[in-house]
């Protein structure tokens, strides 16, 4: 075959590739503008750029997966010397065989009605019909164990819905690699995953690259992840390649203004020393919210009968007036269930939640409504959290009406005042929220929450739907409002860098438990729990890492909250696990200077306690 004769050092060569979106009336809007690059066999090349820079279009063009209104307007994509654009039939024959693609949404990537194994075999036999079903099955199981899916033989026969997000992404990597492709296009593969799982996938990808000698085109929107993952980073800006360098050189000597701006914009965890935002609140005053041993379980009914999901288990912390308190943890750790308990939307099964000395969990519905004037909630989704049919003014006045505050004219005035405070223009008072951007919508949400002049604002992932710049602006707004009104904030978030920027004290949750509560500088510079170290090691940042993922995180996934192990929930992934951890669950214990951690490695408090316990004795 002529293909085999082309044995030079370039696997993929993109030459002057231009792609445009066809608008109404045939007008062409350029998406990619004369992109050129080469990819050598076994090389990992990251492509980075903000949303709209054309990264995904580039990935899809190479995978021969462009659909209307996108059209190639020029250039060529040479794979082993043959132009894929000129020969669509040849390109189709390569799809899934020589050129594999893994996308960013593993959840819907396989047919829900067929087992994962059957679909892996089906794919392999579709692109390599000469392989027998038995061989294909062996290979699939071998690869499933290679990507560290536990009990691969059994998992082979399970359905996609029985896989977690991280496992599904591993299965999709197997799906891509099973045909021994020469090129793997990884389009945002870590985006939907939790940071610790994403770190495991990246590590895995590098190992597989060494083992299977596959070249990887790694598309990504986070510069730290891109730098971690690859041999070289190519920066895409407005459809053009602005520079391409090895990661270390890119970070230290960025050649283009856009790259410099990108690097400067990144928040840091450790740079600038341990001093964080800490006003050193007077801890002798009464806590505004005191959470003590709170737990909540939900009943689910599955094929195997009824089961209890232990969403929140024994959560304990205090929040002091004027503080910024952070609650961090990965998806499924019980953050949102905890939020529902803190706001009185649901009642805890056990424990107490005291707001200014009054038990929220046991208050009567009428009393709870009164209490809610003083603590308000701002939600994550800027779109679903606003009624689309109500005018902005009406949305803002509604809380006042519910609590029967003021006359119509006073309410109107109050709403206008709050709008100007959060930076919404006064002339949108009568309009519907339809035309607002995500950032403006979150401002409106904040305005709606603060119109009652609450004392405590609970922010449940309020900023995670916004981009970096908009996040910064809203954080400034929060700070200004805090200075003016003396709000106390609880930030519930999965984003360590955001929490590092704004919070003075932070609780880390893992599988429904608070595993560590500590002031910001202690948590980031001297974490007391191995899980906190794992979170920090996986946080996307360009700084020299204080904690390396290789040292801090074992393979594996969090256990299911239905079927919890008897000992410490983190034991299955903890590098410093002991036999005691597997048998006995450690409780939160103080490790001095206002820090608590639930780990047996923390020295016994009766020996080292140099300070009175900050937390009420549990």
């Amino acid at each position: 075959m002529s293909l085999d004769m082309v044995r030079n050092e370039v696997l993929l060569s993109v030459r002057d590739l231009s792609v445009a979106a066809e608008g109404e009336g045939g007008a062409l809007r350029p998406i990619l503008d004369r992109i050129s690059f080469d990819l050598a066999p076994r090389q990992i090349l990251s492509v980075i750029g903000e949303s709209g820079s054309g990264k995904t279009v580039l990935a899809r063009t190479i995978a021969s997966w462009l659909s209307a209104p996108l059209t190639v307007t020029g250039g060529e994509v040479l794979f082993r010397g043959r132009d894929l654009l000129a020969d669509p039939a040849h390109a189709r024959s390569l799809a899934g065989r020589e050129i594999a693609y893994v996308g960013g949404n593993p959840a819907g990537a396989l047919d829900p009605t067929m087992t994962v194994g059957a679909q892996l075999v089906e794919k392999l036999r579709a692109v390599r019909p000469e392989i027998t079903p038995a061989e294909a099955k062996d290979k699939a199981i071998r690869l499933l164990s290679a990507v560290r899916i536990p009990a691969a033989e059994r998992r082979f026969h399970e359905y996609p819905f029985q896989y977690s997000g991280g496992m599904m992404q591993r299965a999709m990597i197997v799906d891509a690699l099973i045909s021994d492709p020469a090129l793997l296009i990884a389009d945002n593969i870590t985006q939907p995953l939790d940071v610790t799982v994403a770190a495991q996938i990246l590590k895995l990808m590098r190992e597989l690259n060494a083992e299977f000698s596959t070249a990887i085109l790694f598309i990504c929107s986070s510069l730290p992840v891109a730098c971690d993952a690859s041999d070289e980073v190519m920066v895409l800006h407005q459809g053009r390649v602005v520079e391409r360098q090895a990661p270390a050189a890119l970070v230290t000597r960025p050649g283009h203004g856009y790259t410099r701006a990108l690097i400067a914009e990144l928040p840091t965890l450790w740079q600038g020393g341990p001093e964080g935002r800490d006003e050193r609140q007077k801890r002798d005053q009464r806590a505004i919210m005191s959470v003590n041993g709170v737990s909540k379980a939900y009943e689910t009914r599955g094929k195997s009968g009824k089961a209890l999901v232990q969403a929140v288990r024994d959560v304990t912390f205090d929040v002091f007036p004027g503080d910024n308190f952070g609650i961090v943890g990965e998806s499924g750790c019980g953050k949102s269930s905890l939020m529902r308990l803190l706001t009185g939307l649901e009642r805890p099964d056990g424990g107490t939640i005291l707001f200014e000395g009054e038990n929220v969990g046991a208050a009567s519905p009428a009393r709870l409504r009164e209490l809610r004037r003083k603590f308000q909630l701002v939600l994550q989704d800027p779109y679903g959290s606003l009624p689309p049919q109500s005018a902005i003014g009406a949305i803002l006045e509604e809380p006042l009406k519910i609590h029967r505050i003021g006359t119509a004219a006073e309410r109107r005035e109050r709403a206008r005042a709050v709008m100007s405070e959060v930076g919404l223009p006064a002339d949108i008072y009568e309009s519907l929220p339809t035309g607002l951007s995500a950032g403006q919508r979150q401002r409106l949400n904040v305005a709606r929450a603060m119109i009652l002049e609450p004392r405590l604002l609970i922010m449940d992932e309020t900023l995670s739907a916004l981009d970096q710049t908009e996040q910064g602006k809203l954080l400034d707004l929060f700070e200004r409002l805090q200075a003016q009104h003396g709000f106390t904030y609880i930030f519930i978030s999965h984003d360590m860098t955001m929490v590092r920027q704004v919070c003075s004290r932070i609780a880390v949750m893992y599988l429904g438990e608070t595993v560590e509560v500590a002031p910001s500088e202690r948590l980031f510079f001297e974490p007391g729990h191995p899980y906190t170290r794992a979170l920090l090691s996986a946080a996307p940042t360009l700084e020299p890492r204080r904690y390396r993922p290789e040292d801090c995180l074992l393979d594996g996934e969090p256990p299911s909250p239905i079927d919890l192990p008897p000992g410490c929930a983190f034991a299955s992934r903890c590098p410093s696990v002991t036999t005691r951890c597997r048998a006995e669950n450690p409780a939160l214990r103080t490790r001095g200077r206002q820090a608590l951690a639930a780990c047996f490695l923390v020295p016994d408090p009766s020996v080292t306690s140099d300070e009175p316990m900050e937390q009420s004795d549990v």
Partner: protein
Amino acid sequence: MPILRFLVRRLFQGAIIVFLVSALIFTLLRIVPGDPVRLMAGGMAPEALIEQIATEMGLRDPIYEQFGRYVGGVLQGDLGQSFVRPANGAAVGGASFDDSTRSERAKVLDLIAQTAPKTIQLALLAMVFALIIAVPIGVWGGLNPGRLPDRLALYLSSVLVSLPNFWLGIVLALLLSVKLNLLPAIGYKGFAYTILPAFVLALEIAPFIIRNLSVSVAGVMGQNFIDIARVRGLTRNQIIFRHAMKNSAVPLLNLLGVQFSMLLGGVLVIEFIFDYPGLGLLTINAVMQRDFPLIQGIAVVTAAAFVLINIVVDLLATTIDPRLDY
């Protein structure tokens, strides 16, 4: 065994449904005007005799007592005897009032057992015809949403759904039986007599299947795993026949369950027009003759069939899509 638990639960629920249906029918039949004894005994029978027969038959007892007796019989597999039909042949309502051969009247269970197989045969054949007509059109439409095949499927369904079945039945009987002499139409003397009524029924059901399939196929084709299957290297045939069709099957299955139950419950008009000796014809005659035990028996049997078909449909659905819970 979750599946056993599922079966026990559903059968128990089904038994309650059948009980409630029969209680309702039983009560209604005795509340509506029209005395069955008058029909049985004939218009000329003296009032005293009618009262006597009615009392002997227990028809003057309180309804709950009558119902209790009836349920007791049903539990022993006895659906009672027809008021009207003799055991030995076709029947007409009470000819003479001094007919005392009550023991010779037909058992309801026998009447149903004679006619139900004909209706099942008709229903199954209608289903097969309907699927043969509707599946290709529906899938074709679903694969090309908004384009010509989809619009053709929609127009065809609109036409079919607006055709009255009695008109279609008569026209087809005229065309195929009378003019072209291809198929027999009236009565039943063999399998060929099922074809024409089944075809008319199929044309009646087909538009529902077409719409259901084209909507669900179009929905499935828009999903991520279909989109990405091509990039994974699967062929178009694999994508359509192994993945898209299978995923569209669950909503279709639910529809087929409902349609099949309705067919079994008696296709009154079609069986009447074609004089097809199935449950539908039996029902019509029973109603016209106020044959309480027979109406009652048909109601119980069809309600039980509804329940069983629904259980089968749900079981099949969970084997197709394992995410569904029993």
